[in-house]
Protein backbone atom coordinates (compact mmCIF):
# COMPACT_ATOMS: atom_id res chain seq x y z
CA UNK A 1 0.00 0.00 0.00
CA UNK A 2 1.39 3.36 -0.95
CA UNK A 3 1.90 6.02 1.67
CA UNK A 4 -1.03 8.35 2.27
CA UNK A 5 -0.22 11.85 1.24
CA UNK A 6 -1.05 14.38 3.95
CA UNK A 7 -0.85 18.11 3.87
CA UNK A 8 -1.75 21.00 6.11
CA UNK A 9 -5.12 22.60 5.60
CA UNK A 10 -5.70 26.32 5.88
CA UNK A 11 -9.23 27.44 6.63
CA UNK A 12 -10.93 30.71 7.38
CA UNK A 13 -12.94 31.27 10.52
CA UNK A 14 -14.92 34.44 10.06
CA UNK A 15 -15.47 37.29 9.45
CA UNK A 16 -19.00 35.90 9.23
CA UNK A 17 -18.94 33.26 11.93
CA UNK A 18 -21.29 32.96 14.90
CA UNK A 19 -18.50 32.40 17.40
CA UNK A 20 -16.07 35.16 16.56
CA UNK A 21 -17.98 37.76 18.62
CA UNK A 22 -18.16 40.20 15.77
CA UNK A 23 -16.21 40.39 12.59
CA UNK A 24 -12.90 38.86 13.51
CA UNK A 25 -11.26 36.62 10.96
CA UNK A 26 -8.98 33.82 12.07
CA UNK A 27 -6.83 31.99 9.56
CA UNK A 28 -6.38 28.52 10.99
CA UNK A 29 -3.73 26.09 9.81
CA UNK A 30 -4.77 22.56 10.60
CA UNK A 31 -3.06 19.23 10.77
CA UNK A 32 -6.13 17.05 10.67
CA UNK A 33 -8.18 18.24 13.64
CA UNK A 34 -5.19 19.75 15.40
CA UNK A 35 -4.54 23.47 15.11
CA UNK A 36 -0.95 24.29 14.26
CA UNK A 37 -1.26 28.02 13.67
CA UNK A 38 -3.80 30.78 14.29
CA UNK A 39 -3.50 34.13 12.58
CA UNK A 40 -6.04 36.81 13.46
CA UNK A 41 -6.88 39.24 10.65
CA UNK A 42 -8.23 42.55 11.86
CA UNK A 43 -9.70 45.65 10.30
CA UNK A 44 -13.24 44.57 9.47
CA UNK A 45 -14.63 47.06 11.96
CA UNK A 46 -12.02 49.78 11.73
CA UNK A 47 -14.01 52.96 12.36
CA UNK A 48 -11.12 55.39 12.49
CA UNK A 49 -11.70 56.44 16.10
CA UNK A 50 -8.30 57.99 16.67
CA UNK A 51 -8.19 59.98 13.44
CA UNK A 52 -11.80 60.96 13.91
CA UNK A 53 -11.14 62.53 17.31
CA UNK A 54 -8.78 65.05 15.78
CA UNK A 55 -11.73 66.67 14.02
CA UNK A 56 -13.91 66.75 17.16
CA UNK A 57 -13.91 68.98 20.20
CA UNK A 58 -13.21 67.34 23.55
CA UNK A 59 -16.84 66.82 24.64
CA UNK A 60 -17.75 65.58 21.16
CA UNK A 61 -15.34 62.66 21.52
CA UNK A 62 -17.37 61.09 24.35
CA UNK A 63 -20.05 59.50 22.11
CA UNK A 64 -17.32 57.95 19.98
CA UNK A 65 -15.71 56.35 23.00
CA UNK A 66 -19.12 54.75 23.65
CA UNK A 67 -18.93 53.08 20.29
CA UNK A 68 -15.45 51.69 20.82
CA UNK A 69 -16.30 48.95 23.28
CA UNK A 70 -20.04 49.01 22.95
CA UNK A 71 -20.70 46.47 25.70
CA UNK A 72 -18.95 48.69 28.12
CA UNK A 73 -19.80 52.27 27.26
CA UNK A 74 -19.72 53.74 30.76
CA UNK A 75 -16.18 52.56 31.50
CA UNK A 76 -14.99 53.88 28.14
CA UNK A 77 -16.49 57.25 28.86
CA UNK A 78 -15.00 57.31 32.33
CA UNK A 79 -11.50 56.54 31.10
CA UNK A 80 -11.60 59.24 28.43
CA UNK A 81 -13.23 61.80 30.70
CA UNK A 82 -10.69 61.19 33.45
CA UNK A 83 -7.89 61.78 30.96
CA UNK A 84 -9.53 64.98 29.70
CA UNK A 85 -10.15 66.20 33.25
CA UNK A 86 -6.54 65.54 34.18
CA UNK A 87 -5.53 67.69 31.23
CA UNK A 88 -7.92 70.47 32.24
CA UNK A 89 -7.24 70.18 35.96
CA UNK A 90 -10.92 69.84 36.86
CA UNK A 91 -11.97 68.55 40.25
CA UNK A 92 -15.45 67.06 39.97
CA UNK A 93 -17.96 67.08 42.87
CA UNK A 94 -18.18 64.11 45.21
CA UNK A 95 -21.68 63.26 44.01
CA UNK A 96 -20.43 62.88 40.45
CA UNK A 97 -17.65 60.52 41.55
CA UNK A 98 -20.08 58.29 43.41
CA UNK A 99 -22.58 58.13 40.56
CA UNK A 100 -19.79 57.39 38.10
CA UNK A 101 -18.58 54.45 40.18
CA UNK A 102 -22.11 53.06 40.51
CA UNK A 103 -22.69 53.34 36.76
CA UNK A 104 -19.35 51.75 35.91
CA UNK A 105 -19.94 48.81 38.21
CA UNK A 106 -23.46 48.27 36.85
CA UNK A 107 -21.93 48.34 33.40
CA UNK A 108 -19.32 45.81 34.48
CA UNK A 109 -22.11 43.46 35.52
CA UNK A 110 -23.92 43.97 32.20
CA UNK A 111 -20.72 43.38 30.25
CA UNK A 112 -19.84 40.22 32.18
CA UNK A 113 -23.38 38.94 31.69
CA UNK A 114 -22.95 39.18 27.94
CA UNK A 115 -19.55 37.52 28.22
CA UNK A 116 -20.95 34.63 30.23
CA UNK A 117 -24.07 34.26 28.13
CA UNK A 118 -22.30 34.21 24.80
CA UNK A 119 -19.60 31.95 26.16
CA UNK A 120 -22.25 29.42 27.11
CA UNK A 121 -23.68 29.88 23.64
CA UNK A 122 -20.27 29.10 22.12
CA UNK A 123 -20.17 25.88 24.13
CA UNK A 124 -23.59 24.93 22.82
CA UNK A 125 -25.63 25.90 25.86
CA UNK A 126 -28.30 28.30 24.68
CA UNK A 127 -30.27 28.61 27.92
CA UNK A 128 -27.67 30.60 29.94
CA UNK A 129 -27.64 33.13 27.11
CA UNK A 130 -31.35 33.77 27.62
CA UNK A 131 -31.01 33.98 31.38
CA UNK A 132 -28.07 36.38 31.20
CA UNK A 133 -29.80 38.67 28.75
CA UNK A 134 -32.88 38.75 30.94
CA UNK A 135 -30.79 40.03 33.84
CA UNK A 136 -28.90 42.40 31.58
CA UNK A 137 -32.19 44.00 30.58
CA UNK A 138 -32.70 44.90 34.22
CA UNK A 139 -29.39 46.77 34.28
CA UNK A 140 -30.24 48.50 31.02
CA UNK A 141 -33.56 49.58 32.49
CA UNK A 142 -31.64 51.33 35.26
CA UNK A 143 -29.46 53.14 32.72
CA UNK A 144 -32.50 54.03 30.68
CA UNK A 145 -34.13 55.54 33.74
CA UNK A 146 -31.15 57.82 34.25
CA UNK A 147 -30.11 58.89 30.77
CA UNK A 148 -32.69 57.54 28.34
CA UNK A 149 -30.37 55.28 26.39
CA UNK A 150 -29.99 51.54 26.51
CA UNK A 151 -26.61 50.88 25.01
CA UNK A 152 -24.65 54.00 24.14
CA UNK A 153 -25.20 56.63 26.77
CA UNK A 154 -23.06 59.75 26.40
CA UNK A 155 -23.70 60.00 30.12
CA UNK A 156 -20.36 60.81 31.70
CA UNK A 157 -19.34 64.26 30.52
CA UNK A 158 -16.10 66.16 30.93
CA UNK A 159 -16.55 67.66 34.39
CA UNK A 160 -19.82 65.99 35.30
CA UNK A 161 -22.76 63.94 34.12
CA UNK A 162 -25.50 64.55 31.60
CA UNK A 163 -28.33 63.86 34.07
CA UNK A 164 -28.69 63.59 37.82
CA UNK A 165 -30.04 60.39 39.32
CA UNK A 166 -33.49 60.22 40.87
CA UNK A 167 -34.52 58.68 44.23
CA UNK A 168 -36.37 56.08 42.19
CA UNK A 169 -33.07 55.00 40.64
CA UNK A 170 -31.62 54.41 44.10
CA UNK A 171 -34.53 52.20 45.18
CA UNK A 172 -34.52 50.31 41.88
CA UNK A 173 -30.77 49.72 42.16
CA UNK A 174 -31.18 48.34 45.67
CA UNK A 175 -33.93 46.07 44.41
CA UNK A 176 -31.64 44.94 41.62
CA UNK A 177 -28.86 44.06 44.06
CA UNK A 178 -31.27 42.00 46.13
CA UNK A 179 -32.59 40.30 43.01
CA UNK A 180 -29.26 39.67 41.33
CA UNK A 181 -27.27 38.05 44.12
CA UNK A 182 -29.18 34.73 43.99
CA UNK A 183 -29.13 34.91 40.21
CA UNK A 184 -25.33 34.69 40.18
CA UNK A 185 -25.63 31.43 42.09
CA UNK A 186 -28.21 30.27 39.61
CA UNK A 187 -25.96 31.06 36.67
CA UNK A 188 -23.12 29.24 38.41
CA UNK A 189 -25.29 26.18 38.96
CA UNK A 190 -26.58 26.32 35.42
CA UNK A 191 -23.33 26.86 33.58
CA UNK A 192 -20.16 27.31 35.62
CA UNK A 193 -20.28 24.01 37.50
CA UNK A 194 -22.01 22.13 34.73
CA UNK A 195 -20.13 18.90 34.00
CA UNK A 196 -20.31 19.28 30.23
CA UNK A 197 -19.18 22.90 30.37
CA UNK A 198 -16.23 22.02 32.60
CA UNK A 199 -15.24 19.23 30.22
CA UNK A 200 -15.22 21.72 27.36
CA UNK A 201 -13.21 24.41 29.14
CA UNK A 202 -11.05 22.98 31.95
CA UNK A 203 -7.45 22.46 30.93
CA UNK A 204 -8.04 24.07 27.53
CA UNK A 205 -5.85 26.96 26.34
CA UNK A 206 -3.67 27.30 29.41
CA UNK A 207 -2.14 30.78 29.52
CA UNK A 208 0.99 30.73 31.74
CA UNK A 209 1.58 33.73 33.99
CA UNK A 210 4.84 34.84 32.37
CA UNK A 211 3.37 34.72 28.86
CA UNK A 212 0.35 36.70 30.01
CA UNK A 213 2.46 39.39 31.67
CA UNK A 214 4.87 39.64 28.75
CA UNK A 215 2.10 40.02 26.21
CA UNK A 216 0.43 42.82 28.18
CA UNK A 217 -2.69 40.78 28.82
CA UNK A 218 -4.96 42.37 31.40
CA UNK A 219 -8.34 42.13 33.05
CA UNK A 220 -10.11 38.84 33.79
CA UNK A 221 -7.91 37.14 31.20
CA UNK A 222 -4.81 37.99 33.24
CA UNK A 223 -6.45 37.28 36.58
CA UNK A 224 -7.57 33.90 35.25
CA UNK A 225 -3.87 33.03 35.14
CA UNK A 226 -3.59 33.79 38.84
CA UNK A 227 -2.01 37.25 38.61
CA UNK A 228 -3.61 39.51 41.19
CA UNK A 229 -3.62 42.74 39.23
CA UNK A 230 -6.55 45.11 39.14
CA UNK A 231 -6.12 48.79 38.37
CA UNK A 232 -8.95 49.65 40.72
CA UNK A 233 -6.60 48.55 43.50
CA UNK A 234 -3.14 48.90 41.98
CA UNK A 235 -3.42 52.29 40.30
CA UNK A 236 -6.37 53.83 42.03
CA UNK A 237 -8.50 56.18 39.99
CA UNK A 238 -11.75 58.01 40.71
CA UNK A 239 -12.80 57.02 44.27
CA UNK A 240 -12.22 53.28 44.14
CA UNK A 241 -9.90 53.51 47.16
CA UNK A 242 -12.91 54.12 49.40
CA UNK A 243 -14.60 50.82 48.73
CA UNK A 244 -13.90 47.43 50.12
CA UNK A 245 -13.75 44.68 47.52
CA UNK A 246 -11.59 41.74 46.59
CA UNK A 247 -9.56 41.24 43.45
CA UNK A 248 -10.72 37.90 42.10
CA UNK A 249 -8.22 35.50 40.56
CA UNK A 250 -8.60 32.07 39.07
CA UNK A 251 -7.12 29.66 41.59
CA UNK A 252 -7.85 26.36 39.92
CA UNK A 253 -11.17 25.55 41.56
CA UNK A 254 -11.74 23.36 38.50
CA UNK A 255 -9.15 22.58 35.85
CA UNK A 256 -5.76 24.28 36.07
CA UNK A 257 -4.90 27.93 36.69
CA UNK A 258 -4.88 29.89 33.44
CA UNK A 259 -7.25 27.69 31.46
CA UNK A 260 -10.50 28.75 29.84
CA UNK A 261 -12.63 27.80 32.84
CA UNK A 262 -10.58 29.92 35.23
CA UNK A 263 -10.68 32.89 32.87
CA UNK A 264 -14.43 32.45 32.66
CA UNK A 265 -15.10 32.06 36.38
CA UNK A 266 -13.24 35.29 37.26
CA UNK A 267 -16.12 37.14 35.60
CA UNK A 268 -18.70 35.33 37.72
CA UNK A 269 -16.68 36.16 40.85
CA UNK A 270 -16.32 39.78 39.78
CA UNK A 271 -20.04 40.37 39.41
CA UNK A 272 -20.38 39.59 43.10
CA UNK A 273 -17.64 42.13 43.92
CA UNK A 274 -19.29 44.77 41.72
CA UNK A 275 -22.49 44.29 43.71
CA UNK A 276 -20.49 44.89 46.87
CA UNK A 277 -19.10 48.17 45.53
CA UNK A 278 -22.54 49.38 44.43
CA UNK A 279 -23.97 48.45 47.82
CA UNK A 280 -21.35 50.57 49.58
CA UNK A 281 -21.70 53.50 47.21
CA UNK A 282 -25.46 53.71 46.82
CA UNK A 283 -26.11 54.68 50.44
CA UNK A 284 -23.40 57.30 50.65
CA UNK A 285 -24.10 59.51 47.64
CA UNK A 286 -23.57 63.10 48.83
CA UNK A 287 -25.80 65.95 47.73
CA UNK A 288 -24.65 68.31 45.03
CA UNK A 289 -25.07 69.55 41.49
CA UNK A 290 -23.75 67.08 38.92
CA UNK A 291 -23.12 69.76 36.31
CA UNK A 292 -21.49 72.38 38.49
CA UNK A 293 -18.00 71.56 37.23
CA UNK A 294 -18.88 71.14 33.55
CA UNK A 295 -16.78 73.73 31.70
CA UNK A 296 -18.51 76.00 29.21
CA UNK A 297 -15.60 75.79 26.84
CA UNK A 298 -13.15 72.92 26.93
CA UNK A 299 -9.84 74.34 25.84
CA UNK A 300 -6.93 72.78 27.71
CA UNK A 301 -3.42 74.17 27.75
CA UNK A 302 -0.65 72.56 25.74
CA UNK A 303 0.17 69.25 27.36
CA UNK A 304 -0.57 65.58 27.50
CA UNK A 305 -2.25 63.16 29.85
CA UNK A 306 -2.49 59.43 30.20
CA UNK A 307 -5.10 57.67 32.34
CA UNK A 308 -5.55 53.95 32.62
CA UNK A 309 -8.60 52.28 34.08
CA UNK A 310 -9.88 48.80 34.70
CA UNK A 311 -12.60 48.05 32.18
CA UNK A 312 -14.45 44.71 32.29
CA UNK A 313 -12.18 43.52 29.49
CA UNK A 314 -8.91 44.75 30.98
CA UNK A 315 -6.68 47.76 31.06
CA UNK A 316 -8.27 50.56 29.09
CA UNK A 317 -6.21 53.69 28.71
CA UNK A 318 -6.43 56.99 26.87
CA UNK A 319 -3.50 59.17 25.94
CA UNK A 320 -4.43 62.69 24.94
CA UNK A 321 -2.08 65.28 23.47
CA UNK A 322 -3.34 68.83 23.45
CA UNK A 323 -1.91 71.62 21.31
CA UNK A 324 -3.94 74.26 23.11
CA UNK A 325 -6.77 74.36 20.58
CA UNK A 326 -10.38 73.22 20.88
CA UNK A 327 -9.66 69.90 19.21
CA UNK A 328 -7.32 67.27 20.62
CA UNK A 329 -4.09 67.00 18.68
CA UNK A 330 -3.98 63.24 19.13
CA UNK A 331 -5.92 60.64 21.08
CA UNK A 332 -4.53 57.18 21.47
CA UNK A 333 -6.64 54.44 22.97
CA UNK A 334 -5.02 51.41 24.54
CA UNK A 335 -7.68 48.77 24.10
CA UNK A 336 -7.62 45.69 26.32
CA UNK A 337 -9.12 43.28 23.79
CA UNK A 338 -6.37 43.95 21.26
CA UNK A 339 -3.59 43.00 23.68
CA UNK A 340 -5.55 40.04 25.04
CA UNK A 341 -6.05 38.66 21.55
CA UNK A 342 -2.31 38.69 20.87
CA UNK A 343 -1.72 35.49 22.84
CA UNK A 344 -4.27 33.41 20.95
CA UNK A 345 -1.72 31.87 18.60
CA UNK A 346 0.55 30.82 21.43
CA UNK A 347 -2.11 29.09 23.52
CA UNK A 348 -4.22 27.57 20.74
CA UNK A 349 -1.49 25.56 19.08
CA UNK A 350 -1.90 21.84 19.65
CA UNK A 351 -5.57 22.05 20.52
CA UNK A 352 -8.49 20.70 18.52
CA UNK A 353 -10.28 23.06 16.16
CA UNK A 354 -13.40 23.12 18.36
CA UNK A 355 -11.30 24.36 21.28
CA UNK A 356 -10.31 27.50 19.36
CA UNK A 357 -13.91 28.64 19.71
CA UNK A 358 -13.73 28.17 23.47
CA UNK A 359 -10.34 29.90 23.77
CA UNK A 360 -11.50 32.87 21.74
CA UNK A 361 -14.70 33.16 23.76
CA UNK A 362 -12.82 33.08 27.05
CA UNK A 363 -11.01 36.33 26.15
CA UNK A 364 -14.35 38.13 25.82
CA UNK A 365 -13.15 40.28 22.95
CA UNK A 366 -15.14 43.07 21.37
CA UNK A 367 -14.21 43.96 17.84
CA UNK A 368 -15.11 47.60 18.21
CA UNK A 369 -12.41 47.73 20.86
CA UNK A 370 -9.82 45.85 18.81
CA UNK A 371 -10.16 47.64 15.49
CA UNK A 372 -11.42 50.93 16.90
Amino acid sequence: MSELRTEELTINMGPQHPSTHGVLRLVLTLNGEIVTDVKPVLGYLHRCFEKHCEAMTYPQVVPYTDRMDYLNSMNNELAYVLAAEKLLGIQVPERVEYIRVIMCELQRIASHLVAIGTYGNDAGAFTPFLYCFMDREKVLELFEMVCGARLLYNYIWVGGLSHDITPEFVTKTKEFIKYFRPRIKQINNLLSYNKIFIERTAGIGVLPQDVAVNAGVSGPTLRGSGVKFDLRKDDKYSIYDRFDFDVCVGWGERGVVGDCWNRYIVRAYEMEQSLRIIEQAIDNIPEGDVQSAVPKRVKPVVGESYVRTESPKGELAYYIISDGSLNPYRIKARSPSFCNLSVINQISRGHMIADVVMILGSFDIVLGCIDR
Partner: protein
Amino acid sequence: MGILNKLDISVEQFESGNIIITSMDKLLNWSRLSSMWQMFFGLACCAIEMMATSASHYDLDRFGIIPRPSPRHVDIILISGTVTLKMATRIKRLYDEMPAPKYILSMGSCANCGGPYWEHGYHVLKGIDRVIPVDVYVPGCPPRPEALLEGLIKLQDKIRNQSLAKHTA
Protein backbone atom coordinates in the same frame (compact mmCIF):
# COMPACT_ATOMS: atom_id res chain seq x y z
CA MET B 1 -56.96 27.74 10.63
CA GLY B 2 -56.89 30.29 13.39
CA ILE B 3 -53.44 31.40 12.32
CA LEU B 4 -54.54 31.79 8.71
CA ASN B 5 -57.46 33.98 9.69
CA LYS B 6 -55.32 36.10 11.91
CA LEU B 7 -52.90 36.76 9.08
CA ASP B 8 -55.67 38.20 6.95
CA ILE B 9 -55.70 35.53 4.29
CA SER B 10 -59.11 35.20 2.73
CA VAL B 11 -59.90 31.53 2.72
CA GLU B 12 -62.98 29.69 1.76
CA GLN B 13 -63.82 26.94 4.13
CA PHE B 14 -65.70 23.80 3.33
CA GLU B 15 -67.80 21.86 5.75
CA SER B 16 -65.54 18.86 5.72
CA GLY B 17 -62.52 21.04 6.56
CA ASN B 18 -59.02 20.32 5.26
CA ILE B 19 -59.66 22.23 2.05
CA ILE B 20 -58.60 25.81 1.61
CA ILE B 21 -59.01 27.82 -1.49
CA THR B 22 -56.72 30.78 -1.68
CA SER B 23 -54.46 32.37 -4.21
CA MET B 24 -50.94 31.11 -4.76
CA ASP B 25 -49.55 34.55 -3.95
CA LYS B 26 -51.22 34.68 -0.59
CA LEU B 27 -50.12 31.21 0.39
CA LEU B 28 -46.52 31.80 -0.64
CA ASN B 29 -46.38 35.22 0.99
CA TRP B 30 -47.90 33.90 4.18
CA SER B 31 -45.37 31.11 4.46
CA ARG B 32 -42.49 33.42 3.61
CA LEU B 33 -43.38 36.10 6.10
CA SER B 34 -44.06 33.63 8.90
CA SER B 35 -40.64 32.01 8.84
CA MET B 36 -38.08 34.62 7.96
CA TRP B 37 -34.84 32.94 8.92
CA GLN B 38 -32.18 35.40 9.76
CA MET B 39 -28.43 35.31 9.22
CA PHE B 40 -26.51 34.84 12.47
CA PHE B 41 -24.29 37.74 11.75
CA GLY B 42 -23.50 40.84 13.73
CA LEU B 43 -21.30 43.74 12.80
CA ALA B 44 -21.05 46.29 15.60
CA CYS B 45 -23.00 47.96 18.38
CA CYS B 46 -26.37 47.30 16.71
CA ALA B 47 -25.61 43.58 16.84
CA ILE B 48 -25.83 43.75 20.62
CA GLU B 49 -29.31 45.26 20.35
CA MET B 50 -30.13 42.59 17.78
CA MET B 51 -28.99 39.93 20.26
CA ALA B 52 -31.03 41.60 22.99
CA THR B 53 -34.03 41.54 20.68
CA SER B 54 -33.66 37.87 19.93
CA ALA B 55 -33.15 37.01 23.63
CA SER B 56 -35.96 36.29 26.03
CA HIS B 57 -37.11 39.83 26.76
CA TYR B 58 -38.24 40.71 23.24
CA ASP B 59 -38.16 37.23 21.70
CA LEU B 60 -37.77 37.26 17.93
CA ASP B 61 -38.76 33.59 17.81
CA ARG B 62 -42.43 34.50 18.01
CA PHE B 63 -42.12 36.09 14.55
CA GLY B 64 -40.60 32.91 13.19
CA ILE B 65 -37.19 34.55 13.00
CA ILE B 66 -34.48 32.08 13.85
CA PRO B 67 -30.78 32.81 13.43
CA ARG B 68 -28.96 30.46 11.09
CA PRO B 69 -25.19 30.48 10.64
CA SER B 70 -25.05 29.76 6.92
CA PRO B 71 -26.15 32.22 4.22
CA ARG B 72 -27.62 29.31 2.26
CA HIS B 73 -30.28 28.73 4.92
CA VAL B 74 -31.50 32.26 5.35
CA ASP B 75 -34.18 34.56 3.98
CA ILE B 76 -33.29 37.86 5.58
CA ILE B 77 -30.05 39.47 6.59
CA LEU B 78 -29.96 42.19 9.21
CA ILE B 79 -27.09 44.55 8.50
CA SER B 80 -26.52 45.42 12.13
CA GLY B 81 -23.81 47.97 12.44
CA THR B 82 -21.03 49.88 10.76
CA VAL B 83 -20.03 48.50 7.38
CA THR B 84 -16.41 49.17 6.59
CA LEU B 85 -15.04 49.02 3.09
CA LYS B 86 -13.22 45.81 3.96
CA MET B 87 -16.43 44.20 5.24
CA ALA B 88 -18.61 45.47 2.37
CA THR B 89 -17.04 43.06 -0.13
CA ARG B 90 -17.77 40.17 2.26
CA ILE B 91 -21.36 41.27 2.74
CA LYS B 92 -21.83 41.44 -1.03
CA ARG B 93 -20.54 37.91 -1.26
CA LEU B 94 -22.81 36.70 1.57
CA TYR B 95 -25.74 38.34 -0.18
CA ASP B 96 -24.89 36.58 -3.42
CA GLU B 97 -24.77 33.27 -1.60
CA MET B 98 -28.29 33.62 -0.23
CA PRO B 99 -31.07 31.85 -2.13
CA ALA B 100 -33.87 34.00 -3.54
CA PRO B 101 -36.25 35.42 -2.39
CA LYS B 102 -33.99 37.40 -0.08
CA TYR B 103 -34.58 40.50 1.97
CA ILE B 104 -32.28 43.02 3.58
CA LEU B 105 -33.01 45.03 6.68
CA SER B 106 -30.56 47.81 7.31
CA MET B 107 -30.37 48.41 11.04
CA GLY B 108 -29.01 51.61 12.51
CA SER B 109 -27.63 54.83 11.14
CA CYS B 110 -24.25 53.37 10.20
CA ALA B 111 -25.76 50.82 7.85
CA ASN B 112 -28.29 53.35 6.55
CA CYS B 113 -25.92 56.13 5.64
CA GLY B 114 -22.64 55.93 7.54
CA GLY B 115 -24.09 57.38 10.72
CA PRO B 116 -21.71 59.20 13.03
CA TYR B 117 -18.81 58.11 10.80
CA TRP B 118 -20.29 59.75 7.75
CA GLU B 119 -18.10 62.82 7.67
CA HIS B 120 -14.66 61.70 8.74
CA GLY B 121 -14.82 57.93 8.47
CA TYR B 122 -12.36 57.22 5.69
CA HIS B 123 -12.90 53.50 6.06
CA VAL B 124 -16.68 53.41 6.51
CA LEU B 125 -19.15 52.68 3.73
CA LYS B 126 -21.71 55.47 3.50
CA GLY B 127 -24.74 53.22 3.49
CA ILE B 128 -25.08 49.53 2.75
CA ASP B 129 -27.48 50.34 -0.11
CA ARG B 130 -24.45 51.26 -2.18
CA VAL B 131 -23.57 47.57 -2.25
CA ILE B 132 -26.79 45.59 -1.91
CA PRO B 133 -30.49 46.51 -2.25
CA VAL B 134 -32.24 47.28 1.04
CA ASP B 135 -35.90 46.60 1.82
CA VAL B 136 -36.35 48.26 5.19
CA TYR B 137 -34.30 50.94 6.92
CA VAL B 138 -34.46 51.19 10.71
CA PRO B 139 -33.05 54.48 12.01
CA GLY B 140 -31.38 54.94 15.37
CA CYS B 141 -27.95 54.72 16.91
CA PRO B 142 -28.57 52.01 17.97
CA PRO B 143 -32.29 51.44 17.28
CA ARG B 144 -34.23 50.23 20.29
CA PRO B 145 -35.47 46.64 20.11
CA GLU B 146 -38.97 47.99 19.62
CA ALA B 147 -37.77 49.89 16.56
CA LEU B 148 -36.17 46.76 15.16
CA LEU B 149 -39.38 44.80 15.71
CA GLU B 150 -41.32 47.56 13.97
CA GLY B 151 -38.92 47.28 11.04
CA LEU B 152 -39.40 43.54 10.86
CA ILE B 153 -43.19 43.94 10.92
CA LYS B 154 -42.87 46.46 8.08
CA LEU B 155 -40.84 43.88 6.18
CA GLN B 156 -43.59 41.33 6.80
CA ASP B 157 -46.10 43.82 5.38
CA LYS B 158 -43.94 44.21 2.32
CA ILE B 159 -43.75 40.47 1.80
CA ARG B 160 -47.50 40.13 2.34
CA ASN B 161 -48.21 42.41 -0.60
CA GLN B 162 -45.81 41.07 -3.15
CA SER B 163 -47.01 39.17 -6.17
CA LEU B 164 -45.56 36.19 -7.97
CA ALA B 165 -46.38 37.75 -11.31
CA LYS B 166 -44.24 40.82 -10.75
CA HIS B 167 -41.62 39.20 -8.58
CA THR B 168 -40.17 36.32 -10.56
CA ALA B 169 -37.56 34.81 -8.32
